[in-house]
């Protein structure tokens, strides 16, 4: 086994929360819920309201996952990295930002919005909020599902580069006015992976990887992160 899964968190149109504390939502035309800082962080994240929807979505799911793994509270910064897989990433923010550039002849481009036009930026927000000093980056593959990011995380842990990785997917979906659509699931889903679990009783099971890059959960091959969640929470 390379790592144990000790935390799961997600936001979908149907439900949100963590593996050990989640609730159903009233789906509204398949749309994701409007997220507020109070839902997860109380009043302790004043920047949350300034983030774009993609960042809010991913940051919320990461917070749920860390809470599930009892790693949301911290005193000293710790070596934990984050990898997010995404198809559209922050494309809606890109479009909003550039509309602002065009509307004002480039003179009033929003620096705050521009900073959100990188798909890895919310990982920096998560690093600041949770004191995570491992690398954070976004992975973009041709297929939705998130296993590429999971493979990279397991490869890093296998090489003893880092003891904790938070891995997942984040996709708010195709922007409404973007006419090129990829079939995919909207929402965010993150897992906390620990090489040396602090509390073994929190483990949902063990992850391994074959030399061909196939990911195994408790010895059985998994196809994507959604099926991994179903394996973690069979009921």
């Amino acid at each position, binding site marked *: 086994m390379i790592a144990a899964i000790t935390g799961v968190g997600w936001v979908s149109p149907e439900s949100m929360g963590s593996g050990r504390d989640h609730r159903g939502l009233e789906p509204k035309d398949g749309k994701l819920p409007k997220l507020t800082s109070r839902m997860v962080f109380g009043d302790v994240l004043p920047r949350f309201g300034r983030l774009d929807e993609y960042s809010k979505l991913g940051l919320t799911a990461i917070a749920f996952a860390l809470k599930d793994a009892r790693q949301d509270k911290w005193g000293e910064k710790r070596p934990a990295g984050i990898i997010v897989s995404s198809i559209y990433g922050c494309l809606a923010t890109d479009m909003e930002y550039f509309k602002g*550039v065009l509307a004002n002849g480039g003179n009033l*481009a929003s*620096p705050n919005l521009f900073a959100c036009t990188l798909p890895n930026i919310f990982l920096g927000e998560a*690093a600041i909020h949770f004191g995570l*000093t491992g690398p954070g980056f976004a992975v973009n*593959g*041709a297929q939705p599902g998130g296993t*590429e990011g999971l493979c990279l995380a397991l*490869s890093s842990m296998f090489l003893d580069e880092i003891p904790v990785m938070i891995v997942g997917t984040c996709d708010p979906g195709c922007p409404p006015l973007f006419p090129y659509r990829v079939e995919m699931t909207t929402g965010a889903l993150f897992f906390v992976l620990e090489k040396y679990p602090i509390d073994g009783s929190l483990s949902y099971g063990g992850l391994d990887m074959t030399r061909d890059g196939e990911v195994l959960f408790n010895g059985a091959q998994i196809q994507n992160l959604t099926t991994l969640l179903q394996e973690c929470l069979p009921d």
Partner: protein
Amino acid sequence: MAACIEGLATPQGRSMVTALVEQLFANMQPVPPDAALITATTKMGIDNLEKLERKRPAHLPDILLSSLPELVSQKLGLGTTGINISASCASSTIAIARGAGLIASGRADAVLVCCADVVTEFTFSGFSALKVVSASPCRPFDRARSGLSLGDGAAALVLMTEERARREARDCVAVVRGWGASNDAFHITSPDPDGSGLVSAIGQALSRSALNESDISAVSAHGTGTLYNDLMELTAFRRVFGGRRIPIYSVKGTIGHTTGAAGGIEVALAAKALAERTVPPTAGFKDPEQGAEGSVSASAVPLTGDVCLTTNSGFGGINAAIILERGSA
């Protein structure tokens, strides 16, 4: 100010990145078709998003970041669709690190790392809004520096196990000895002024390489020419190298800041510097910032030693470091 590649002619509606990739592979040695593929870009075909917003013809798939590995894979006939890594201005440094990691973990014996980014109105307006673009060519580590210069750029590097490279009689330009990456966990757009994130990334790279800081012969710095980046880097290098006046250089005064492609280009140039035993000049450098005296030079100087450290940092607090050793070619 931006350093753009002239004459990037693109087919109707395609992104400039497609033309850049065409040029990149025009004279490259054959890439093994079974190589794993990791690309790096921050904005890929963002010029096509601009066209879309202006109601001009645009090939929309070019806008998605995943289209870079697809483009490269199709062009070279690789057996994989590959993945893209996006980590701000350290994107391609991380891509090389992960490629080396795939090889070190025995999951690949050949990896193609390809990186590309172009200057567009989107990126230029954004960096301008952040007030970090210099009106004249950037001057890394100079007291009179006034910001960065953006640039178009791309690079491709084939990583292989030593055994496979020997078997295929490939020239070994350089050896990736170590890599490291970290997050400042400090601020979204400003680096931690104490340089602790970069120090951590360098420390990881040294540890993996089993080398000491005294083995490093030169440093290819991120060297953007922005106030906060340059001061942070000089602080970090002082913490790693102590009082030793190690040669430090930045190529961004010459080619501009190529954002997601910067790390890959700089690793390629560091390999060339090692091969030619020459530390490249830092263009625009005249009046040393405190801590740069005796380390940064506007002229090329001899490179004594066999090992070069390259570093990059970016928005979101990311830092990455690669240690290269001179190859046998």
